[in-house]
């Protein structure tokens, strides 16, 4: 069982570091799914996030977050590949 503190969300001087309005939306979507679909366990998302960051280390953090979110939805059958292609 992982909590948010295990996810390594970037912080700036102690606060969650968001630079654009879409970033807290992406954060909130992941937090919502963790809450409602993963029994508050951040671990499934965390492993996707680690993979997304590793896959492209130059990619901005929250963009990797968004990729991890899509990967999670796909891997757990919550969305289909066609759904993601239509975005």
């Amino acid at each position, binding site marked *: 069982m992982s909590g948010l*503190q295990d996810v390594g969300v970037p912080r700036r001087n*102690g*606060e969650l570091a968001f630079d654009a309005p879409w970033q807290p939306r992406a954060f909130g979507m992941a*937090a919502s799914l963790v809450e*409602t679909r993963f029994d508050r366990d951040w671990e499934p998302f965390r492993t996707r996030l680690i993979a997304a960051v590793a896959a492209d280390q130059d990619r901005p953090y929250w963009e990797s977050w*968004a990729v991890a979110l*899509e990967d999670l939805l796909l891997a757990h059958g919550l969305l289909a590949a066609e759904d993601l292609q239509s*975005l």
Partner: protein
Amino acid sequence: MTSDHHHHPAEPAPVERRVAALEQLLTDRGLVPPGFVDAINRAYEQDIGPRNGAKVVARAWVDPEYRQRLLTDSTAAIAELGYGGHEGDHMQVVENTADVHNVVVCTLCSCYPWPVLGLPPAWYKDPPYRARMVREPRALLAEMGCDVQDDVEIAVWDSSAEQRYLVLPQRPPGTDGLSEQELAELVTRDAMIGVARL
């Protein structure tokens, strides 16, 4: 295209459009209940973090020895309750008294003790708040609905990455019969920043 076109917002980045479309899709599919993302963000802003700070305050109200430890080594005393981590280091708790009202600002940026207070409120980062709280704290506090009597000194604490402040509000009168848990429920985020009194 008009001459002021360069003032218009930039085209949304692809990721911005994609995240918005994803949220719409998740909402349409019922995977994320309507309003839930807003609620989650509010929870992280107002509910989860400040409750930790509120428990610290309530403990200090009921336990004089804890209160003393909290004022002398705030980081360690907060860690006793299980709160802390990188963003909760270098804490200094400042105590409101009958003579002094404390208020916290971060003039350089928006340093904030996240583990005890959660996400900072939007106004905390606003340059006008940061500038005016230093220049005219009494007037600004009054505008925010926090009237500090003229004979009470206002101490403004400027947070930084090296030192983050948490206000220990005065225990409200008439709360002698309340449990520590009930007391914690009285403590608000704004009171711990110092822009409200309990």
